[in-house]
């Protein structure tokens, strides 16, 4: 058959004499096009990464100068005073983001469970999904204004919990939507298996769906935390800033530093904002260091989250 085909006219088969055409050559239009597109995608990737790395480079270069071990334990410096640090801002950021996480994670995950497992096609689920998508685009300053009106005014002052509420507002949609996706990716046949074993819906969710979806859910939480840790605008309305430890009596770390939650609270983001506009060199330098510290903290959180997700996806 094959032999006849090559000899016969108009068979469309390749003539063995044309075998040289099989050699890859840029003179072929399709090869040229393919090559050009490969170059283009590579160039675009580099183009996208370039600003990112230049920011990091700048940050390290400028931030490392004023960074000492004392930077992590000392209070913010006054104008034209040597030394100082952002110890209280790290503690403040940690406290505020923790409060926000404790609020946002249960809401986000339980809502995700509801809209995937218990009422996937209900009006409520559609409304929640729509609201979450809209809220992901919520300008963060509005979250701050909202928390100001609801918590700061009601509780009578700027505080870490007020900032926690503002950040939680920004975290819930991210956690909800990523958790929804992760839960949806749990194969139906695993759900069926659980139900077939005589699991109640709650047991099915708690013992099969959530553990299987955990890596995805954790990734979502980490993304939300990373975003929240860098937010500045909401904190200006809620936590404001403090030049002191949370408990004003104790200049040292843990646990007394966690004392006064209901007072204005320092945070890295607001410190960077305040000091970067300062006319004093030492404060500007401290702002760079704080920025570097913030980026490193966010990076470490992300790496920890990835590692955690990887560990939980490997089965014990």
């Amino acid at each position, binding site marked *: 058959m094959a032999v006849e085909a090559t000899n016969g006219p108009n068979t469309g088969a390749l003539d063995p004499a044309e075998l040289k055409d099989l050699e890859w050559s840029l003179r072929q239009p399709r090869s040229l096009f393919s090559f050009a597109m490969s170059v283009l995608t590579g160039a675009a990737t580099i183009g996208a990464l370039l600003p990112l790395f230049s920011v990091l480079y700048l940050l390290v270069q400028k931030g490392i100068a004023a960074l000492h071990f004392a930077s992590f334990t000392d209070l913010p410096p006054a104008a034209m005073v040597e030394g100082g640090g952002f110890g209280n801002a790290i503690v403040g950021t940690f406290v505020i983001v923790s409060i926000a996480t404790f609020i946002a994670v249960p809401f986000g995950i339980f809502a995700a469970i509801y809209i995937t497992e218990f009422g996937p096609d209900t009006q409520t689920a559609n409304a929640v999904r729509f609201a979450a998508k809209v809220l992901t685009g919520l300008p963060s300053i509005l979250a701050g204004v909202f928390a100001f009106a609801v918590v700061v005014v009601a509780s009578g002052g700027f505080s870490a919990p007020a900032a926690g509420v503002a950040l939680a507002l920004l975290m819930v949609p991210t956690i909800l939507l990523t958790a929804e996706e992760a839960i949806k990716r749990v194969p139906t046949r695993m759900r*069926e*298996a659980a139900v*077939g*074993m*005589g*699991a109640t819906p709650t047991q099915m969710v708690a013992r099969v769906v959530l*553990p*299987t979806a955990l890596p995805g859910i954790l990734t979502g939480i980490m993304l939300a935390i990373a975003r929240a840790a860098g937010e500045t605008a909401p904190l200006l309305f809620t936590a404001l800033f403090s030049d002191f430890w949370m408990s004003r009596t104790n200049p040292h770390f843990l646990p007394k530093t966690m004392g006064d939650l209901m007072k204005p609270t320092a945070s890295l983001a607001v410190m960077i904002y305040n000091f970067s506009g300062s006319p004093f060199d030492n404060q500007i330098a401290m702002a760079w260091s704080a920025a570097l510290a913030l980026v490193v903290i966010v990076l470490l959180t992300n790496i920890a989250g990835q590692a955690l997700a990887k560990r939980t996806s490997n089965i014990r």
Partner: protein
Amino acid sequence: MTPLESRTNGVAHHHANGDDTLLDCTIEELHYGKFKAVRDIALKIKKGTITAFIGPSGCGKSTALRCLNRMNDLVKGFHFRGHVIFRGQDIYKPGVDPVAVRRHIGMVFQQPNPFAMSIYRNVAFGLRLNRYKGAVADKVEQALRGAALWDEVKDKLHSSGLALSGGQQQRLCIARAIATEPAVLLMDEPCSALDPVATHRIEELMKELKKKYTIAIVTHNLQQAKRVADMTAFLYVDTTQGGRTGYQVEYGPTDALFENPQEKHTKDYLSGEFS
């Protein structure tokens, strides 16, 4: 073509007493929303036997099987008229908890579906659901031995169940199902995703399992039904009333049904002459 009346070897009783019937199943009508999926199925499943459901695609074999432990309750718009008497109790009676039913009537699915956890935890899953107080490890070993998987996995009980081969995964699912010692094991085309060697092992296993468990199996493999089943139900599709409704054509001992089918549809299907 006129729809044939369902034909059973026995008369449908509403209560199974005296004989060793474990499941007495009558499906008058089964709807998914407006779609009538199955009608007129009546069969009794005896303790310690294997009952096979055979028939062309879309004849409602799986649907009928899933009625037996109320798996269909999960499907939206599911409506059932009939009864399934299990140990003298209609599992469709109002007030019956389908979750409790499924703990007595276990299920093995078409696709092996181990959970994303270790082999050990997969098998222990049902025991933990039931808050089993005894020695879980012993039960796990017993179940894995029962599913003829112990020797292959005893050294890696704590590695992922998903890392096993397809046939091993399916035996793991069987082990998981029998760990809680249900009375009945429903198997929905358990070998359709497996190669012939794995299929053979599962079939041997089924013959072993029926000493302790009552088994109902859906299969599209006629030879498999012939090899393992004591009783066989042949289901067919009725297209005359609009839509495709499955119904029971014939039910009887496997040998008799294959050697000497009473109905034309059965005869045609078994000899490969079906539309």
